[in-house]
């Protein structure tokens, strides 16, 4: 019986991975694993989590990426840009 429960958990881990961290501490995880309002019933979570159902770190990953995208190109790219520009006249 326990083995069966564990299999369910493992499947959940894979299919509902974005919610894995909120599933873990819940005691009724096996009876209501996919409750649509599951996140809303946990008042302690940060607003981001409640709204999207995605944990805060998921936004952190996107922020990390975007913060680099928004950086100006460093000086080290000058040579590359020059090279691309020169080959115009090939």
């Amino acid at each position: 019986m326990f083995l069966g429960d564990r299999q369910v958990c493992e499947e959940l881990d894979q299919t509902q991975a974005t919610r894995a961290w909120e599933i873990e501490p819940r005691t009724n995880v096996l009876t209501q694993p996919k409750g649509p309002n599951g996140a809303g019933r946990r008042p302690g979570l940060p607003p981001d989590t409640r709204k999207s159902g995605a944990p805060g770190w998921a936004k952190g990953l996107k922020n990390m990426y975007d913060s680099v995208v928004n950086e100006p190109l460093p000086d080290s790219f000058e040579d590359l840009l020059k090279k691309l520009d020169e080959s115009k006249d090939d």
Partner: protein
Amino acid sequence: MTEAGTRDNTTQDGEAAEFRRELLEVLPHLRAFARGLCGRPDYADDLVQEAAIKAWGARDRFTPGTSMRAWTFAILRNHYLSELRKNRRQTDMDDEAAERLLVMEPDQEGGLHLSDMQAALSKLPAERREAVLLVGAGGFTYEEAAEISQCAVGTMKSRVARGRAELARLLNVDPGEKLVSLIKR
């Protein structure tokens, strides 16, 4: 063939200019992807420049109208992986790289900081790291990401799911106190 070449010169110039414009446009994205992959800004920028040169050299193989970002990401990740394999043969460099990863300490001020994320990312196996970066950060569909990583869509889905679960675990368990303070805020 030479006749056709001279006749199409203007078209080719136009295409080259368009290619160059699109390539320059995706450079910031390549930088973000590369930094996520390897975790070291300087090395990431080297990878991007090398990948950009490769892309420029292979521009004949690019189909105009398709995604320059997806195309160049594939070049970058292949280049990164081949560099990784090369370096793995040189144990000295491997140790050095491992040391640099260890030096990346999470920010001490609390809350989830970028460096926490980068440190957690660096602990994932390369293919899962790449998967969460492509889908979770880069905004690619599973199908696009699978094409970039040259794997089946199902494989990509499973890599993303496992990668996300691992990130959640790393960011939850490791800086546990930080997360508690974040929740209570």
